């Protein structure tokens, strides 16, 4: 079963990231890298990407004749997708466990961030014979 794990970061958190010490940033990146390596070794890793900071993010809509109309990100948005991880696991519980590991990635002062991770199943299920 494939699951996508999405890390949503509060808008305020994005700003705070800039205030981290070099050491904290390095530790956080090393943690994520190590986690992905472990998942690859356990045969569960499918994909992972981190997203750029939302400063330059734009919302696009099709205008007349499909012309793209861009807009700034809604100011009322409270959180942004910071990155995602796709895993192929044996059970839902295992996906939750990986989410908890990621959630506890170290932040300032090497303390766990305990970020909320949204876990959703990927539509990779099988179509059964129908009645």
């Amino acid at each position, binding site marked *: 079963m494939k699951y996508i794990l999405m890390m949503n970061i509060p808008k305020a958190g994005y700003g705070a990231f800039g205030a981290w010490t070099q050491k904290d940033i390095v530790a956080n990146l090393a943690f994520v890298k190590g986690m992905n390596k472990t998942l690859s070794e356990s*045969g*569960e890793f499918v*994909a992972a990407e981190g997203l750029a900071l939302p400063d330059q993010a734009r919302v696009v809509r099709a205008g007349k004749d499909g012309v793209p109309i861009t807009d700034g990100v809604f100011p009322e948005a409270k959180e942004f997708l910071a990155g995602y991880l796709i895993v192929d696991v044996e059970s839902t519980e295992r996906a939750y466990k990986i989410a908890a590991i990621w959630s506890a990635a170290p932040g300032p002062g090497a303390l766990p961030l305990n970020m909320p991770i949204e876990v959703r199943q*990927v539509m990779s299920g099988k*179509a059964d014979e129908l*009645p």
Partner: protein
Amino acid sequence: MKETLPDAETERLLRELAPQVLGAVVRRFRDFAAAEDAVQEAMLAAFTQWPHEGVPDNPRGWLIRVASRRLTDQIRSEIARRERETAVARDAETFAPVHDIEYDMDPNDTLILLFMCSHPALSSSSAIALTLRAVGGLTTAEIAKAFLVPEATMAQRISRAKQSIKDSGAPFCLLPLEERAERLPAVLHVLYLIFNEGYASSMGAHLQRLDLTREAIRLTRSAKALLPDDAEVAGLLSLMLLTDARRAARTGPDEELIPLDKQDRTLWDRAEIEEGIELMTDALSKGSVGMYQLQAAIAAVHDEAARAEDTDWPQILALYESLKRVSPSPMVTLNHAIAAAMVDGPSKGLELLKTLDVDSRLAEHHRLDAVRAHLLEMLGDHVSAVKHYRTAAGRTTSIPERNYLIAQAARLEEGSRGPDEKTNVPSS
């Protein structure tokens, strides 16, 4: 004389030889994990060389030689690295001329490998991957592509599976008869899962994927050849053939799912149906009736009906009752309820479904809602049917299935608005 084979032919030959080559190499070097890697490398070498240089006179011997050389080199460099003698190096047999082992054939090798790859220490996804590589002779890249995961992930899954087998201390030999009987269901389950992975995902979007259905049928055929007297192996092969026979009719031009009663039965593969029925009839005559034979028998009853309305539902109901006794599961109860509804009316089916509401394995499963919706529709309660079709659509993790269920709900709702608006099932 060397001949040049087209790639597909080379592939078929290599896949057939893979378990034989692996068997010979494992017996010589006594290290399953390392031998399996060496055989994979030999196979990859053959894939690149044979199509250009022609197939060697003795392809099996060629593969054994290449794999053995890799292993020998590996062992030698290991020894050099450690700068000390090991037990393996003193073992003259290890370095015996490879032509000795070229003819070291054991017809049971494929069987030994099948049992090894469905070792109880492995998760089902690992067992599937290892079976496809060690017995099926597929490359890691092909398997990774079939399961839509990165090649590195699949390689790790396979190497961990081999490590688990190594840790379990399982020797490379045929299990005693009693233990074999005990473990056979696990072997058949792995083959069934490979088939199902292929059959259930045989949608257009994945046309580039390896045909796991065909691979499963091929592997089950070899299992059948090695265990000719086992009725369940025959039952499983029969079930695969009788199910695969409907493949072309199962999806429409836009990849939409077509349920059994709406399929164009002229598209069903007659040859597969005939072979499946023959296998099933032969298996049933052997006495002990198992779950695969019963499922094959049910598939055969469907396949024998020229039109959906000709289906012998009382016969199917009787078979589900047997299946409920032999191998009870919530899915069997669910299918039994459908058969009961077809014979005794939808109320009977709905009544049987009630027992599943309290079953945690199925209570929130989309199939329960889908079947309930179907039976409610039969009963004429369209409002409730729409509700359950929608719940099922929200719970399934298959896109074609979700589209089908949403379309069913829409069809019923439009139908209840007036006959003029009645439309057929949309395709997306």
